[in-house]
């Protein structure tokens, strides 16, 4: 007996890239996509992740070629600059499109005039 064909949207969502799909890494990539470069401390405060947690996630993203980590100094202070790679940007967008196609199947769409930075919900 042959396997029943599954909807392409379901097939695609099951094949989501877990390196990107993990919530913290998804947020890290989204923030890095929105700026030219970010300092480690700044990214830590924007995502609310702890130093160790952020460091671990960045290590995974760097290994996958999705971000670059550049270590240097600003005056006497060490400074780590983080950037999303072109591949990271492409994969984040592709992943987001897959998710949106899937969510559209269950009638969930982003609010039209959602204003970033505002709390939502009750």
């Amino acid at each position, binding site marked *: 007996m042959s396997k029943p064909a599954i909807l392409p949207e379901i097939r695609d969502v099951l094949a989501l890239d877990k390196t990107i799909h993990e919530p913290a890494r998804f947020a890290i990539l*989204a*923030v890095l*996509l*929105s*700026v*030219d*470069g*970010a*300092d*480690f*401390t*700044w990214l*830590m*405060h*924007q995502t609310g992740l702890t*130093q160790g947690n*952020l*460091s671990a996630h*960045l290590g995974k993203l760097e290994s996958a070629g999705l971000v670059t*980590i550049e*270590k240097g100094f*600003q005056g006497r*202070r*060490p*400074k*780590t*600059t983080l950037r999303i790679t072109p591949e990271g*940007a492409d994969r984040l967008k592709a992943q987001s499109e897959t998710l949106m196609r899937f969510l559209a199947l269950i009638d969930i769409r982003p609010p039209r005039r*959602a*204003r*970033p*930075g505002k709390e939502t919900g009750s």
Partner: protein
Amino acid sequence: MTTPLTRALYRRSFDDGWLDVLVGLGLTLIGVAWLADQIVLGALVPAVLAPFWTIGRRKLVEPRLASPQFGTDRQAQTRRSLTGWAIFGAGIALTELAFLVFVNRSGAGLTGLGDLAVGIPAILVGIGLLAGLIVGAKRFLAYGVVATGLGLAGAWAGVERPGLLILLSGAFVLACGVALLARFMARYPADGTHDE
């Protein structure tokens, strides 16, 4: 790449209060200069304070929170908006000047409007403060309303020195800026920078 998230992050990068402190301090000093009949000195205040923007960011903000690099597109867009706002402000200033000249020359028919002159610098300050909206800092709308209100109230109450109204507007912005900066410094301690 500029996304809605870029705009939200850019807006948040001005929430530390340093911009408010500098603007408030500048207006307060301009007000003091006007009260001391040293209007020319007051005109120099923005040029004197401008370098402190970078100094304050480096000494107060970056050691605590660091900073992101927003693309050249975003910075160019802000520069264009500020230039547009300056031209708009200059246009309003010239219109008000023309109006005052007209009132002074036409005399009796418009009695009382000349008294409004005392409030005009503060009203202009109020319009100028709205420029803070360009970087998304909505509190500058409140500052603008307060300065404009002070200008109108001062004219109505018969205040004779425009410098006093500018000083009061500046003191209000400065107080708000100090409160925001104090909150920022408490939230992000000086030794709060981390490295991977």
